[in-house]
């Protein structure tokens, strides 16, 4: 059945949205009245992406774009080219540069091993958040720590480092890996993360 859509006076992307709704509803003969050339171009692209044909003709005050044909099945989702999406892993909050209490020296070594283990993991965390003494890790001199963090970054893990904390310790210029961040972002990550691990 033929369907007519009046998209006159509607700016992009509304004509495309209305046409797509009709196609999603199973229509295979949709005519859209539009008043600008850009809408014509965008509707033509929509038709092609669905394996259908668009023909446009001038009409009073604009154009009529008729989309017809058999709609092809939805394509497989495209692979992500770059800027890897954060993997579905945990968000790890690191508020000091050592693990546990008892021996500080042991704790520092444990932290080094902890980050190394994260970097080697098949399911690395989605996000590392460094605050207070934790910022001494990405801004520190320990090569193994920096290497682990860089490797996590390469795997798509987001690394946010509290700027106020860096400043407090005079380490702003020493940050070697990660993004300088703020309370707003870090709190936002903590509140929206599906799983938070605190070290």
């Amino acid at each position: 059945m033929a369907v007519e859509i009046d998209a006159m006076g509607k700016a992009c992307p509304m004509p495309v949205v209305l046409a797509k709704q009709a196609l999603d509803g199973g229509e295979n003969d949709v005519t859209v009245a539009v008043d600008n050339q850009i809408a014509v171009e965008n509707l033509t692209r929509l038709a092609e992406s669905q394996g259908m044909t668009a023909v446009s003709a001038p009409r009073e005050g604009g154009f009529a774009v008729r989309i017809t044909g058999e709609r092809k099945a939805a394509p497989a989702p495209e692979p992500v080219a770059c800027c890897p999406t954060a993997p579905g892993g945990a968000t790890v909050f690191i508020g000091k540069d050592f693990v546990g209490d008892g021996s500080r020296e042991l704790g520092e070594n444990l932290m080094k091993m902890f980050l190394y283990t994260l970097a080697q993991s098949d399911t690395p965390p989605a996000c590392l958040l460094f605050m207070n003494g934790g910022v001494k890790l990405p801004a520190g001199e320990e090569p193994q720590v920096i290497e682990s963090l860089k490797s996590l970054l390469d795997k798509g893990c987001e690394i946010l480092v509290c700027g106020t904390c860096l400043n407090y310790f005079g380490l702003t210029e020493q940050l070697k890996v990660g993004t300088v961040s703020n309370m707003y972002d870090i709190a936002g990550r903590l509140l929206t993360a599906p799983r938070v691990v605190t070290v």
Partner: protein
Amino acid sequence: MASDIQLTKLAECAGCGAKVGAGVLAQLLEGLPTRTDPKLLVGYDTSDDASVYQLSDDLALVQTVDFFPPIVDDPYLFGQIAAANAISDVYAMGGEPKLALNVMCVSPQMDREAVHGVLRGGYEKAYEAGTIITGGHTIQDKEPKYGLAVSGFVHPGRILRNDRARPGDVLTLTKALGIGVTTTAAKAGLADPELYRQAVEQMRTLNKTARDIMVNFDVGSCTDVTGFGLLGHSLEMARGGGATVVIESGNIPFLPGVRSLAEMGLLPEGMYRNRHFAESSTKVEGEVPLAIQDLLYDPQTSGGLLIAVAEKDAQALLSALRDRIPCAAQVGYVEARREDCSIVVKP
């Protein structure tokens, strides 16, 4: 506390998409008087990112202004994005921003929280850039708008102009493309939330890191990719340098999922303006899908730096960038000028 106002509903155009097209702008400005001054190192004539005025042998002032209507609904994020975008022009000249002034239009629908949110976003982003906002100017308007006039400094011998691409240079891009398509799809409710989150994150990320790394290498030319799209800005770079820019579209970082949105025709008006401006100087060699071509013309808001670096330094620059900016990529190179085109797009 948070404002309920959806800022993008108050504006017709969004972000850098509101920019007057490059071709139209040139026509509008034609015939206006210009003055020269030997100390004006970068002025009106090269449509560069900012103007540069020499103060002493080792110091020059960089000045720029940029503002636009809301590109996101959240006032704080809008402030952050607009500030990152405005400050970026100083980075694109190789400079360091130091002082800024707010430029703001407040619409009647904006309540106190919304205005505060925008300004707080701007202040915090400026602070992150090491820039102080010292005042500004606010007027009433039907649509909200926000941005900054920014001043910074650069060494007169280390200015990175947008038009000095040298044959042999390698082009490096520091942010993914697809912002215009994403925000258009978001208006239609068709942008995946994760895509949208990444787009916003990218827009409010300063180009400071990229600038700080870039200045350690032999860079011939630099610009930030904004309203004119990658090809529009590449065209300025190619023409000024008397060279031809080759874009390898297969190496370009795109935000995840934007290709299918572009295929679906969720393209902003600015994309067509940019295509109109640059297409006649552009030659496509080989099979480049239309959606990919469209994305190369897609207007970006607070886009990345496009850096033309000497070939000998290209790999070192890329690995230094990648440490901090995982999506940085080599997207093409500069050739001796071809007779028939200023830009070549390859698969």
